């Protein structure tokens, strides 16, 4: 979240700065909670792909300040480093690695989590099918860990992009949870394909022991779970995939701020400092070279 730009158009963006959230996405989790009472009775919480940490902030305030839950524990995992948050154990780790799972379990003293969430999104390339695939892989990676750490009856919430094959994911999740809902908080722009799957009441697959292993792909991990994922058929024929349309629920009050609307800001045009500066991109060196004029053409 940078210093300038979208301040005016996006009230949530501004409100996030005012209320001390590291990203406007905090409101998405708050609105999901309003609708589904996600935080009711939870103690052990895992926040995946957590950086910069706005969901962990929400969870921290909820568990420690609102509920004052003495058993409350939050573990936030991300590949990127994160600025510490009160009461949140941050792990800079890979969510697909078995060691990460062990570290969380150690943190919880062997107890299972009540709530796992992920607000992660990969960088998009612009090739829609590839981007959707990578996003689906990210959700499956989060789901792998979730099946290993979530208590039966627990809740899983993750960011999705509603594309052409989202009904495959809905189908697979329907095998693992009693209820799978596609939720769209009012703070998520209507013009964006972003939504959240809210998966309630985890029902572990009978006779399946999920096990994270280093040399297993996500496909192999779920191979024996029988969650309706298509397998390699004889002669490698094209399978007919199982597709399910999840129930859609728009959440947040319709009269609450509309993330698509333009608001006039009377007399409060001062620019607020961001809560957290953006991290350095992989192309940082290229940008520096460009500034120095070192990218000039040398024909």
């Amino acid at each position, binding site marked *: 979240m940078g210093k300038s730009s979208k301040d005016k158009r996006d009230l949530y963006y501004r409100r996030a700065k005012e209320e001390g959230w590291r990203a406007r996405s905090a409101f998405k989790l708050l609105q999901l909670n309003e609708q589904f009472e996600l935080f009711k009775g939870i103690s052990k919480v895992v926040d995946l792909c957590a950086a910069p940490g706005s969901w962990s902030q929400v969870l921290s305030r909820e568990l420690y300040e609102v509920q004052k839950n003495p058993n409350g524990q939050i573990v936030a995992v991300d590949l990127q480093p994160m600025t510490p948050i009160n009461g949140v154990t941050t792990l800079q780790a890979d969510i697909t690695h078995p060691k990460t799972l062990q570290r969380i379990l150690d943190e919880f003293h062997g107890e299972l989590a009540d709530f796992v969430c992920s607000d992660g999104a990969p960088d998009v390339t612009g090739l829609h099918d590839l981007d959707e695939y*990578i996003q689906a892989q990210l959700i499956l990676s989060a789901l792998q860990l979730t099946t290993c750490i979530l208590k039966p009856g627990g809740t899983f919430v993750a960011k999705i992009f509603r594309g052409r094959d989202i009904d495959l994911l809905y189908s697979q999740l329907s095998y693992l949870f009693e209820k799978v809902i596609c939720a769209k908080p009012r703070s998520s722009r209507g013009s964006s394909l972003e939504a959240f799957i809210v998966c309630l009441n985890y029902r572990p697959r009978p006779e399946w022991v999920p096990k994270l292993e280093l040399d297993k792909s996500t496909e192999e991990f779920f191979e024996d779970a029988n969650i309706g994922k298509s397998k390699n058929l004889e002669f490698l024929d094209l399978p007919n995939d199982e597709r399910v349309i999840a129930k859609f629920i728009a959440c947040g009050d319709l009269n609450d701020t509309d993330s698509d609307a333009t608001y006039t800001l009377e007399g409060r045009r001062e620019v607020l400092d961001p809560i957290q500066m953006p991290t350095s991109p992989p192309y940082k060196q290229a940008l520096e070279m460009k500034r120095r004029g070192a990218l000039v053409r040398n024909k």
Partner: protein
Amino acid sequence: MIEGFNTVSSVNEDYFTSLSHYGPVTALRFYQHYILCGYGPVLKLFKIEKNECSLVNSQQVFKRNKIHSISVTSDGSKVIIAGARSFSVIEFSEKNWQFVEKAVNEWITCVEFLNPQTALILTSHNIVYKVDVSDMVLFKFRLQERIDCNEKSILYSGSIRVGDGKVIIAAGTVMDGVIIWDMNSSKILHRLNDHKGSIFGVKVNSSLKHIISCSDDRSVKLYDFESGKFLAEGWGHGARIWNLEFYKQSESLRIISSGEDCTVRVWQYEEGSDRLKQLEVIDDCHLGKHVWSCDVDDVQNNMIVTGGADGSVRLHDLQEVDNLADCYSIESISKNFGVVFDKSEVIKNIAEMDNLDYLFALTSHGKLLCLDQSVLCWKVVELEENECEKFCGFAIMKSIPSVNTLVISSIFGDTLVMDFNSSSIQPLNKTWFSGPSGNKVNSLLITEDPAHKNFYLLSDCPNTKIPFQVRHFRECDGRLKFVEEIRLDQPNQPKFTSTCMIYDSINHWLIVYSRFTSIMIYDLNTKQGKLFRKICDGDTITSASVIENKPGSIHCLAVVRDGVYLYIKFTKSAEFEIEITHENKLTRGFIEGGFIKNKDLYLYGFRSNYFYVWNETKQLEVAKELCGGSHRLWEVYFPGKKDIKYRFAYIHKSKLYIKTFNNFLSDDSCSVINSGTHGREIRDIAISPLANDDNTKYIMTASEDTVVRLGRLHSNGDIKYNWCLNEHVSGMQRIGFLNHQFVASSAAMEEFFIWKISCLEDGTPLIKKYSSLKPESDFPDLRVMDFDSCETETGFIISTVYSDSGIKIWDFNVNTKVFTLLSKGFYTTCCLLQVKFLRFNDELHLLTTATDGHIAIWRIENSQKELGNPIIRQQLHQNSIKGVILDTVHVNLHRLVTGGDDNALVLSTLTFRNGKIEWSSQSFVEDAASSTITTMAYGGDQKVIVTSVDQINRMWDYSSGSLECVSAKYTTVADTGCSHTTVLEDQNMLVVGGAGLSVWTW
């Protein structure tokens, strides 16, 4: 069956027929004189023959998935194509491929043949499937083995190199750099961790000597294959790099890279240097962003082929990489050709005579030199001493290549006309014409009308009291013959600096263009003229030419240096009148000239330190030269003969450079072997209500990146674009025809434009921004979300709705171009999405939809300035209503079908009864799509076509009073966001837009 099972993902698919598809080009491969092209799910085969490249076959090979990888067996017998989870193997031939779509349960990163019977499939989990593909009758392919290296990180990219008895896998991971492993031993050979970010491309060359890779960090890195040692890197790309290829045979190690900055770059490795040398940059390969696919053939065809997000496939001439300009300096001409120069003597003028291959140079000391380009020899053209003196210090030299004539004017307008032939560089004849006595001239204009053999020369004095001195010549036996001298009064204004002129032989009119976009037109019959001052924004009109003329009217092209080009129509009944019929901006830099060739508009000029030639119709750069920028002496020639395409001569750092662009293919425009649409997602589509004489309809499309395009839709589904309009500066929202002549478009930053369409005699459409709404705020940030219109006697009533919930109703007068606000109001504070006019009992009403899932209806009264409250406000959806179809049954009854972000479809009615409008629900489908309904189009006879981002078009019939899905079929266009239906030649047509366009019929 699980609850909520998707019953509408495929229904009666044969109901619809797909006519055409335009979208991202996802894979390209040269094979001998063929190009295999993965055009989304369609495989296209192009053949290169005799300087032409043509499509020989095109078939959709995958139902849903896009082709990302193509490979041909070494014996050329088979082709494997793969993308997402799908793959197919076909026998290589020019027509009708037999195939069965196959699949593995993981994303396929790339495919290769081990031998003609065995395919290797690398999945995104870094696993290789070895598949027996020998059965080409029943296509019973057998998975023989799954091989991995015990590292199953997710791959963004990868390649398989089969050679020398080895199979080497190069894996580009999302997070862990590059892994090079040997398939036969399953051993990891190298881990290359120098890149930052995800690896988007990695290849091993055919001799297993080098590895190249690229990533999110925008660099290309070269490694030694044997040792895995880093050798060199190349920086230059301005965004992510998607593709890398090795030259196949070049003596030095060369690499091409392409990516998100829409460039292709050619790199050379020079041993000992850790920097790759960038030999060539091809900019703007495609519209918008992204070169998604490319390949290089330096063996047979000497070409690069690129495919873009815009759906076009282009060929680039590889020979340009090593094509350097000839360079001469005063010193080298003196040394090599024995020409004696004075100290401080420099070249001041250049002119070319391309039939004879002569290039003339006039020096500051009045010395005339000629370069015979057939033998590359400089000689002095012998002039008398007093002639040289006249040209000392200042002279204007121009050539008339069609008659091998050279014209030189002194500062006082004394003009020497000389003609040449191929036997000698010395003139055959010399004729002197004296200038406007004693007055300095600042320009010499020449115009020719070769068809009628007329030539006019005009000398212009800065003193506007001195008439233009115009000389008429006629061609006679290949030579210019003087006919008469005419004096024309200069325009009556302090300054008129003429820059170019054209002669219209049909009407005998002479048009003189000048700085500050002013134009003087003369009727040579009466010698009377009329001045048109400052016809548009901008500075100098740099070039003009006739497009078409007939008695009483002429249509001409004029280009303005600042980047505007115009089609101007002059007519004369009692007086001269002017109309700009087409106006557009070029965002590429300065325009110095333009011409029309084979119906394509070409423009040329300077962009930063480059000279460019740009085909505006095809949107393609056809030539460029790094020359240092526009501030220099330069000339460009378009001979259109032999092998030479263009010749550009310029002075750079006191040296004369002559760059010859050779012909590549039979014509520049042939280098686009498949035409495309937009470089970014298409946000709206408009189709003209009436058909043109050629049975086409105008189609206009608007994309995210502010671009609006105008073209023609044909009944076979082809869309042929004519223009790419750059008037909008913010993200497009909507475009729509108001009638056959007027179009409106809306965008962010309160942009709302009205355009006027007309056409040339040959049917080429022309378009000009006709009027626009002034933003209300000094810092406009509202998006004009939608508009609707109804025609009046004087123009249109137009409603616009805004992202701040605002609604405005305007009267637009077509004659005065003035908008008058009739009424305005606000809905709530949420963003409005759609607006429609509707009538009850012949009274005008307005219907809106918004992000809060409600429809609202207002009554519009004539005298009412404030819109007030809606008379109906009804929630139909949970959130955004993105599609709305109004179907008028009679004056008091409308059916309404709405589709929303909530996947639901609602049929309801609006009835006017006892002075009140009543809304009532008829039918509701909760799961009408698996994700977001984004657009709807009327399908006729109580049917609607509903499109959603699950990429399915569904036809719903509501004639029974409830919504029934008649057909549901997958569309190959991703991110579907707009649609339009029309009828052309009695055929129902549907155009769906998103990341490309798809045209269907039913």
